[in-house]
């Protein structure tokens, strides 16, 4: 192990002295600037008064105001969007993981009748445009009395998250040597006990990555979420549409609402920052 560490540290120092002045960092730096500018502008607008937004053009608020946020916070129902979104995202993640885990195990360990077709069929659901499903979903969930519930949105999002979860988990599981299974069975573990006590701890990181992706795609999807809800389970986007009134668009409040929808995602990224690079490899590199 330490021999590998050795070479690693050598690489760092080795490269430095001989190379000429490095300008490589400019590329990511410019890209990050490009990413942050629109977000900066949104944050800036949320801190300005509407008069300042529409009449002057400033890179920094002349009159720093939190009134726009006050408008949203004073609306008693502003936070219901957060809660609703969080609930259906959580339900979706749990459902996706719990059905995908055994299926991914089956795909990674066994061959069975129709396995390849089934796998591809699952993946095709990731390719289904939500727009195609919006109307049928609306009718289906109305018919079974689930319309405007969190579970409806969670189930609808399974359409693309379950295939993705199976795909990612299968990649991670294929990386776990089969000998682990065999040893466990020889040690007298039953399948459920082996799966929960030995196998799952072995692919912890894979499960974390899958959960992150489920969160991500369920959190940002709004076409289905809005089609399937009216009041009780309305997603976070609701706060944004409320800013359009008869007198036109309230830009400041719209920007504040936009900023507030970004915050939860930013928090999640901050918490998983050390796993991002590994996670995006999807266990398939």
């Amino acid at each position, binding site marked *: 192990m330490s021999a590998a560490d050795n070479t690693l540290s050598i*690489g*760092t120092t080795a490269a430095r002295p001989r190379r000429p002045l490095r300008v490589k960092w400019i*590329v*990511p730096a410019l*890209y*990050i600037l490009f*990413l*942050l*500018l*629109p977000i900066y*502008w*949104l944050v800036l*607008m949320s801190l300005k008064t509407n008069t300042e937004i529409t009449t002057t*053009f400033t890179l920094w608020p002349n009159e720093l105001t939190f009134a726009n946020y006050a408008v949203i916070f004073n609306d008693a129902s502003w936070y219901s969007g957060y809660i609703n979104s969080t609930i259906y995202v959580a339900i979706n993640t749990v459902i996706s993981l*719990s*059905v995908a885990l*055994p*299926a991914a*195990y*089956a795909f990674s*360990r*066994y*061959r069975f009748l129709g396995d390849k077709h*089934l796998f591809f069929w*699952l993946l095709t659901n*990731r*390719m289904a*445009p*939500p*727009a*195609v*499903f*919006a*109307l*049928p979903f609306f009718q*289906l969930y109305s018919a079974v009395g689930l319309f405007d519930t969190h579970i409806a949105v969670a189930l609808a999002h399974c*359409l693309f998250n*379950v*295939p993705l979860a199976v795909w990612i988990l299968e990649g991670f599981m294929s990386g776990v040597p089969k000998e682990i299974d065999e040893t466990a069975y020889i040690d007298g573990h039953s399948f459920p006990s082996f799966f929960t006590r030995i196998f799952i701890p072995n692919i912890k990181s894979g499960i974390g990555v899958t959960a992150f992706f489920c969160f991500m795609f369920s959190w*940002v999807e*709004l*076409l289905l979420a809005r089609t399937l809800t009216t009041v009780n389970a309305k*997603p*976070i*986007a609701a706060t*944004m549409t409320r800013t359009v009134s008869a007198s036109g668009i309230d*830009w400041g409040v*719209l920007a504040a609402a*936009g900023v507030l929808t*970004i915050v939860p*995602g930013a928090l999640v*990224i901050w918490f998983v920052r050390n796993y*991002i*690079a590994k*996670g*995006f*490899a*999807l266990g*398939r*590199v």
Partner: protein
Amino acid sequence: MDKPVNQKAWFLVLPVVLLVAFSAVIPLMTVVNYSVQDTFGNNEFFWAGLEWFDDLLHSDRFHEALWRQFLFSGIILLLEIPLGIAIALAMPRRGWTVPLCLVTMSLPLLIPWNAVGTIWQVFGRGDIGLLGHTLGQLGVDFNYTSDALDAWIIIVVMDVWHWTSLVVLLCYAGLRSIPDAFYQAARIDGAGRWAVFRYIQLPKMHRVLLIAVLLRFMDSFMIYTEPFVVTGGGPGNSTTFLSIDLVKMAIGQFDLGPAAAMSLVYFLIILLLSWIFYTVMTNAGRDRKARAHAAESIP
């Protein structure tokens, strides 16, 4: 890969099959059902055969939307894949800047799609947006609500802003899996920058690039929320992509039959193209493997 055959594995995949059947097959059947029927309201339907499909395949509206969709996905792939690779190659490999890059780059991916639309809708406006205003100051007449080209530019730039990071992160993950010894060996062998990219980095990114191309193709082909928020499909129909057109038809005009027919054709096109991408991109790899295996079996 010598996996044992075990039919009992079906029990493990059964929950997934049932769930996906409920959330995909049943709605899809509804769509199929609509696509072959007509209605005059009052929930009375009658058989229309393949009439809707026939209409659709001969409608200019569909052809135009389909063409726009292809153009859009093509531009997106041509821009985001090379850009993503280039940024990933230039990213620092160690040090405190690594988490900084990763966190800021992932940020756009976690923003709800209508918020992405709103951000760019505001950012591009000539009166209150930084981009639109700055361009105006520079003497560029930029107005995405009235000029079709400007509308396309802002939507493409928005998508690059939104999704390039996914390509970057995937490629970066691939690059990180290359041990230092490979770079050292390349220096000893006297390989230049291009040879290092061509023979070490690109092969290691092969798998993640496949994922990136597939995801970017599928998602750009299905794009709806972001352009809808920014341009609403306009000016005119210039940015009306397939999904926008479909929603307009199904929910706006409540033309269930034609919308359903379009849904199916749309879905089939994505399936077909994804399958082609997948086969083409994995075939190169599989060929190599097959030949290597054959070589091994010959003593």
